[in-house]
């Protein structure tokens, strides 16, 4: 008996696509954790954050390698997410007149929407703080030793209510995506069972809350004047 004729390529098989979503998703989560720890140095102060930013910028080839890796992860995750969603709509061409939902969480049913909104936010975030396209005036910010003043840039950025609120909303959507995503990861990889699954649901929600509080703390601290521009003004 041969197996070859039946084995559709892993990347297009239903379960294979899910595994790709899960692996790229968990790598993105890994990035979120590292990125958060890096950013929280905002609370230590200007010197620390700017030094950190300069170190990252000085990585040269490694930096570009990492950026490319992140891009590939994001493209696979978004692409497979959209394909799954389209296929799933096609699997039920005629719907029900009455349809109940018993235990599927709202976060699980809105993954494609939270996902696409996060994607839109990531594009804006890169244009805003990384490529400095939307607010070109940030490019002039330099600290006393002539480094790019990331510290002042973040505070100036979040002092704008519209921008700060947009970031807060995006972080909420991200946390909402993660509350289903982290639990889903274990199920997709086959590591969930009756004993762990209920605990994974709780842990997944807790993790999402930690990520939200972590990221939201920065715009909130700026809005509440807890972290201030070096001159003391805001």
């Amino acid at each position, binding site marked *: *008996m041969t*197996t070859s004729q*039946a*084995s*559709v390529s*892993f990347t297009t*098989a*239903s*379960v*294979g*696509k*899910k*595994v790709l979503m899960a692996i790229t998703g968990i790598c993105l989560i890994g990035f979120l954790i590292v990125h958060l720890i890096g950013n929280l140095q905002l609370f230590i102060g200007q010197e620390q954050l700017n030094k950190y930013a300069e170190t990252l910028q000085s990585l040269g080839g490694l930096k570009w390698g990492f950026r490319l890796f992140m891009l590939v992860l994001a493209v696979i995750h978004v692409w497979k997410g959209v394909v*799954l969603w389209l*296929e*799933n709509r*096609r*699997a*039920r*061409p*005629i*719907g*029900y*007149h*009455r*349809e*109940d*939902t*018993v*235990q*599927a969480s709202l976060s*699980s*049913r809105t*993954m494609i929407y939270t996902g696409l909104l996060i994607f839109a936010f990531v594009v804006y975030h890169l244009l805003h703080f990384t490529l400095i396209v939307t607010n070109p005036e940030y490019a002039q910010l330099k600290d006393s030793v002539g480094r790019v003043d990331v510290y002042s840039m973040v505070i100036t950025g979040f002092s704008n209510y519209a921008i700060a609120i947009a970031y807060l909303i995006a972080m909420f959507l991200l946390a909402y995506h993660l509350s*289903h995503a982290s*639990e*889903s990861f*274990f*199920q*997709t*990889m*086959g*590591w*969930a*069972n*009756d004993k762990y*699954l209920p605990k994974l649901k709780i842990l997944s929600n807790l993790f999402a809350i930690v990520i939200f509080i972590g990221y939201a703390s920065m715009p909130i601290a700026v809005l509440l004047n807890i972290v201030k521009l070096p001159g003391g003004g805001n």
Partner: protein
Amino acid sequence: MNLTLYVWRQKDAEDKGSLEKYDARDINHHMSFLEMLDVVNEGLIQEGVDPIAFDHDCREGICGMCSLMINGRAHGPEKATTVCQLHMRHFKDGDTIYIEPWRAKAFPVTKDLIVDRSAFDRVMQAGGFVSVNTGGAPDANALPIPKANADVAFDAAACIGCGACVASCKNASAMLFVSAKVSQFALLPQGHAERKQRVEKMIAQMDEEGFGNCTNYYECEAACPKEISVRFIAKMNREYLMATIAK
């Protein structure tokens, strides 16, 4: 009790079909849902109207033929209950009840509330078996199986192939059914030899039939009359990953 029913009527596979309103009069609380439909059909036959076609066979919750979406729930509002075991005492006098067929591209409607579920049969034909040379039956104790494995395999084997998992899944995914079948074999020594090609072939066939992809909603588990757990989906994902890595 008296009820208002909205029932999906469709002459054949090609017909567009529509929801039709019927009155169910003098229904006894002790009747099953299917017996209630029998009463309505008696009335329709006397009026010269084509009776409502629906699937059923054993009427004791074991064959998996009955298959109705009742008020948006596969097999109706009761947990772990097939339609044939659903009693009218769970409804109130004056209730309005929507009755629709399973909806999935892989389960085309053939008439009224009857769908063609042979996609499940083809998934089984793809790998839901153990290849053996049939001879005399082996001694029952010749093949020791740990009690824990036997119990879990039995839980999986409780699946009656009704398709409620597909009907209730927002993605019309067949993962609960296929995973129950894959697990039931993978857990027992007889099924062990073919476990890798089995999971690959059954999943390939499932995809080919046009079922959706699982997104871990777990609506299937809530609808399943045999309470098949979504842990079997995790198990099948693991089986599939192992089979892929092994290649």
